[in-house]
């Protein structure tokens, strides 16, 4: 098709192009660095005194291992140059040893890492609870204060993971393919990848992945097996990844299995990701089983299973999380940021608990972070977690 003669019209606008843009690049950089520093401070303020490394991957939860393993295997694909010493880094940024390479520029790896926080689902260890019940007797919609407390407990046990999905502000680095001479469980793996966290300024690895090779079956399919070490525990790890990329579009499917060397607990992670232009859709699930046999006999025989879907279109992001046990099912829908200062999120809850005879639908909860405390408000009820 031929373009029409548009010279006269374009001429009309030519003056506008003489305008000299006043905004300078250094002003933008300064503004960005200030915002980044403020964001880092806000996150630090929000975090509980609990050790950050432990918060990410610590404890006995097998799920955290699964996530960690997934992140390791995916991160292998991505290698970036060491930091340029001349770069005007934010002074608040930790100093990263030049031997470490980026993990966070792999969006998928970052997402896997954030989900380690969900290991605490349903538990409230060391969590100081302070219930402020504005009107205990009053039934709000279909919820009473006891149900509200359960809903808040469950959400609060994974709030940090949700925060990280929405904000993605964790920083991890990896020492890739280091030579290994250590014998583990009767085998000496050729290589080890060591993972470091900004929480301790990248000084100690919190996780290690031992392996001989990454099996690249073809351009689209990769598989790997190895041994994962985390908090002095070891896990057999198997991964299969398929990815397909075309211009402006990509798809990824991932399956990951981890088996605790001592307890034989098993974790199964599934991840699907689609990206096209300015839209993306991710779905993820992590299921915990008492043993391999349980998983083989019945995939639905999990101890608990957490799944999420996140849809992104332009700047709009919609997150939905579902947690299932053998007797309950809870969905947190449309989790979204409604205020930056104080940090405030809202979400809708659907909760069904056969054992405790609770059924809640479309119940809106607002979560506000103030002075290191988390205020949950729903109807006339409010609870605070520290």
């Amino acid at each position, binding site marked *: *098709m*031929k*373009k*029409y*003669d*548009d010279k*006269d*019209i*374009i001429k*009309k*606008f030519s*003056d*506008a*192009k*003489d*305008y000299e*843009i*006043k*905004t300078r*690049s*250094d*002003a*933008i*950089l300064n*503004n*960005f660095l200030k*915002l*980044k520093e403020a*964001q880092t401070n806000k996150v630090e303020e929000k975090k509980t005194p609990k050790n950050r490394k432990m918060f990410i991957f610590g404890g006995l939860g097998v799920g955290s291992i699964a996530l960690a393993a997934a992140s390791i295997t995916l991160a292998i694909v991505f290698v*970036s*140059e*060491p*930091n*340029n010493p*001349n*770069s*005007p*880094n*934010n002074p608040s*940024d930790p100093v990263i040893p030049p031997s470490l390479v*980026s993990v*966070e*520029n792999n*969006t998928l790896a*970052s997402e896997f890492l954030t989900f380690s926080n969900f290991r605490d689902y349903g538990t409230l260890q060391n969590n100081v609870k302070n219930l402020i019940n504005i009107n205990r007797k009053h039934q709000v919609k279909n919820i009473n204060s006891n149900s509200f407390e359960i809903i808040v407990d469950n959400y609060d046990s994974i709030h940090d993971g949700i925060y990280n999905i929405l904000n*993605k502000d964790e920083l991890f680095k990896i020492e890739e393919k280091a030579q290994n001479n250590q014998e583990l469980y009767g085998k000496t793996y050729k290589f080890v990848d060591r993972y470091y966290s900004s929480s301790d300024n990248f000084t100690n690895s919190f996780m290690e992945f031992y392996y001989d090779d990454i099996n690249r079956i073809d351009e689209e399919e990769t598989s790997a097996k190895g041994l994962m070490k985390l908090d002095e525990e070891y896990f057999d790890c198997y991964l299969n990844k398929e990815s397909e990329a075309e211009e*402006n579009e990509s798809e990824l499917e991932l399956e990951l299995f981890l088996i605790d060397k001592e307890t034989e607990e098993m974790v199964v992670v599934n991840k699907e990701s689609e990206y096209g*232009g*300015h839209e993306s859709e991710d779905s993820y699930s992590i299921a915990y089983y008492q043993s391999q046999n349980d998983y083989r006999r019945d995939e639905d025989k999990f101890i608990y299973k957490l799944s999420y879907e996140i849809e992104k279109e*332009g*700047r709009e992001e919609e997150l939905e999380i579902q947690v299932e046990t053998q007797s309950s099912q809870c969905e947190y829908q449309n989790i979204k940021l409604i205020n930056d200062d104080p940090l405030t999120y809202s979400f809708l809850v659907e909760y069904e608990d056969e054992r405790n005879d609770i059924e809640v639908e479309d119940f809106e909860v607002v979560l506000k972070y103030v002075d290191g405390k988390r205020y949950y408000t729903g109807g006339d009820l409010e609870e605070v977690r520290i």
Partner: protein
Amino acid sequence: MKGSFSEHIKRFKEGNYISFDEFYNELNRPIFYNIYSLTRNYELSEELLQETFTKFLMNVVYIDEGENVLGYLIAISRNLTLDYFKKYGRVRNFEEHEEVHVNDKNSIDKTLLLDKIAKILKPKELEIFTLHVLSEMTFEEIASLKKIAIGTVLWSYNNSIKKIRKGLGEL
């Protein structure tokens, strides 16, 4: 018009902003005029331009190195501008128009012309028109950005030119 920005993106992801000035100077004009086509106000466009690039840097770790950076920035700038209008309404915008009228003769013509054209063209036509005329993007780039066939872009643009000629009379 725009080369690959993958090296810049890679550096920014590593916290190295040494080439940001070069990156910014190559991309600021199409982004600025894209914003200006919506605001018709230079001062406000400057503010939103700064916000666009700041937002871009805040999110750079999530951008693929092969991403269409110009398209990404244009999407951010449009969303930020529309958010601005949602938040503050158009009142401030019109008030500032008045200031522009008083201070800048060139701006008067441009602003009035854009206002008129915005009334003549459909939103999608206006977008393609301004991306080509103000942001100086080629039809191929617009087609790639909007993920539509180049023939559709040309058809829309030619249609816009016809409508503008008819709507504005003698130019």
